[in-house]
């Protein structure tokens, strides 16, 4: 059997040691074969030694925190037969690996086609950011029925851009935590794409609302956005692009987005009156569109009086 590899995981990455000697002692004392700095590791914590038949045995040497496999404290020596063997010495996670262990795919720095290109390339990052600027400027323009002055327009635009850049920085930091790397182009691309999508959806929802004469499209899109699309996009970003640990990434995303998602959900429930609880507000489709495209046909006053008005009567007998 070829020599096994010991991987020590720490915040700064992983260290790797080949087991060349018949025995390998790990601990915090400075006369160990592998020296660990973690204070929860005992001075002489554990030992991996090669047996006569070529297999390896892992044995705990210390009583304080000991060895845990799968969370369970192991007192007796363990034969290293199923690789990778993952154990904890104190708070340090250690893996014993087979040298034939298949490693994660190479992360391409410059891509050769494929949609993932968008998130690694400065060209794409700047293009997407420009697209975001254009869409937000368009939205800003639509919301301003005043004579545009450069200062008022740019002031509003600057605010939007600051928010976007703030999100980019937040994502950068999350990135750094999960993959130990500062990756500005991909963060910029991702934030720009997400915000641009949100803005476009916001622009289109009133027309869908008008078309169906119902607040339902807005409700569905809003719900899908905050509960499905956004968390999925973030998790995908962390896992696929940065090869972060899948479970950890998902947990991270959920914890990060949970307050926002909860708030969004509350807003949607109350705005679209889903629980039918009392509200002083009256809920109705109040969107208007310059293109009068809709499913509902136009009624005469008599038809409105006979068909529509009775449906809202508080007296159930009338309805």
């Amino acid at each position, binding site marked *: 059997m070829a020599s096994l590899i010991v991987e020590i995981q720490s915040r700064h990455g992983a260290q790797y040691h080949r087991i060349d000697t018949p025995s390998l002692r790990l601990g915090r004392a400075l006369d160990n074969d592998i020296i660990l700095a973690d204070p929860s590791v005992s001075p002489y914590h554990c030992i991996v030694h090669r047996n006569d038949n070529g297999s390896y045995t892992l044995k705990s040497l210390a009583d304080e925190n000991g060895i845990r496999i799968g969370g369970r404290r192991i007192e007796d020596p363990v034969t290293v037969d199923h690789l990778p063997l993952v154990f904890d010495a104190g708070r340090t996670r250690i893996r014993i690996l087979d040298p034939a262990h298949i490693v994660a795919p190479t992360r391409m720095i410059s891509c050769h086609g494929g949609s993932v290109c968008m998130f690694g390339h400065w060209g794409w990052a700047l293009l997407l950011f420009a697209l975001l600027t254009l869409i937000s400027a368009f939205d800003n323009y639509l919301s301003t029925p005043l*004579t545009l002055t450069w200062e008022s327009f740019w002031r509003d635009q600057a605010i939007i851009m600051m928010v976007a850049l703030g999100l980019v920085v937040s994502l950068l930091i999350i990135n750094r935590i999960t993959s130990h790397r500062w990756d500005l182009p991909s963060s910029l691309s991702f934030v720009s794409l997400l915000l641009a999508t949100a803005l476009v959806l916001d622009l289109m929802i009133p027309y869908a609302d008008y078309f169906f004469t119902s607040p339902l499209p807005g409700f569905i899109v809003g719900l899908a956005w905050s509960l499905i699309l956004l968390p999925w996009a973030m998790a995908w970003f962390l896992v696929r692009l940065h090869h972060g640990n899948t479970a950890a990434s998902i947990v991270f995303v959920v914890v990060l987005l949970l307050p926002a998602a909860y708030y969004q959900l509350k807003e949607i429930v109350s705005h679209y009156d889903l629980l039918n609880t009392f509200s002083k507000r009256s809920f109705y489709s*109040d969107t208007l569109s310059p293109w009068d495209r809709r499913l509902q*046909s136009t009624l005469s006053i008599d038809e*409105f009086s006979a068909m529509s008005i009775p449906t809202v009567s508080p007296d159930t007998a009338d309805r």
Partner: protein
Amino acid sequence: MASSPEDPPLFHSRGRYPGAVIRNRHPALFALRLTALLILLCAAAAPVLALDSQAIFERNEQAVYQIHVVNRDTGKKSSIGSGFIFDRPQHLATNYHVVSQFIEKPDRYELRFVASDGTEGPLRLVAVDAVHDLALVEADAPFGDPLQVSEPPPKGAALYAMGNPLDLGLTIAAGTNGGVLSQTDDSRILFSGSLNAGMSGGPTFDERGTVVGINVSTARNDISFIVPTRYLQSLSVANVVPAEDFRRVITQQIREYQIRYLQGMIDGAWPSTDLRRMRVPGAISPTVRCWDASPKPKDEHLYRRFSISCKNENDIYLSDTLEVGKILYEYLWIESDHLEPLRFYRLYQALNNSQFSSKADKDDVERFRCDTQFVDLSGQTFKTTVCARGYKNYPGLSDLLFSAAMVGHDRQGFIFNLDLSGTDFSAASRLIVRMLEGLQWLP
């Protein structure tokens, strides 16, 4: 100084006997002397017929009582008003809003009277007229002689209102008759004296000392309102309504009034007003007043907005969170020469946000139920919404919200909003339809 059958006799307690006949042997001189006497008589009669506020106060202070709504648990007054002996010796007339807390929660509160000499006692509710804000209460023992009532004097004549303002003690406030107000559906007289909280339910006297009205409310300093006594006459009833039934009685009164009131509007002729390219109904009743509500235009605006706002002034007090009988409607016109349709409609949509303004909460009313349709009004298409909610404690009364926004024009918009509170649903529906028929597009 018009005389009426209830005029006090010329034989006044002041002791003069003006009807003395003067004997004279000379006919011409007799005629002259008779004329002089008549003149003297008229001059003397004037101060005799008109009382001053002191006299009115002294004559009537025994007949005006404080009415307290007392919390049964604490034994302390929660709200106060006034009342006076009316129609029967053991009956006091007062306002509905003075006793409304008791009607809302009869197990929490009780009614008591306090006389000017300090004696107290319990009161029972006999009858109410919620529409005119009147109530009749009674005690076991008689209070005294009921006060005389009569029709109000002419506009400008002196009026004297008695009551217990701000719990400071019984007083009398002087003022003049401002006339019956058509905007209150003739149910109020304008009084130029100063009424204050606590005087509600007290009597208002003319200068002969007869009751011509009952104090009801004030708008601000020296602008106060009196309910004319003719509405009190309907309160003289023989049967006592049990406390549980008052809500039903009140609902019925208000509903019947609303049906009459709205039907009167529907059947009447309305003046029209032009708002740019829409001809719209103006004041649909003498009780409705319309005002310009256009916002101030600014130089940087790339659009023009005009608006008319109309409301009635005869709302009915039901409780501190419910004022019913209100009618509010408004017309908004918006147009632009410079804005592209997309930009214009952003603005237009933002204006289309009619919500019902009310203090009612979930204990008073249900949720709004709405329906939105597209309706053809005068050849133009309108996105139209009607919403309604019922009253929990007064089943049969509803709030209605109606909103119609014109679509189909690139740079012109028109919105018509109508709110009705505490009304009858069918009558309100008919009013809405009539108003929609009154909208006309001017090509």
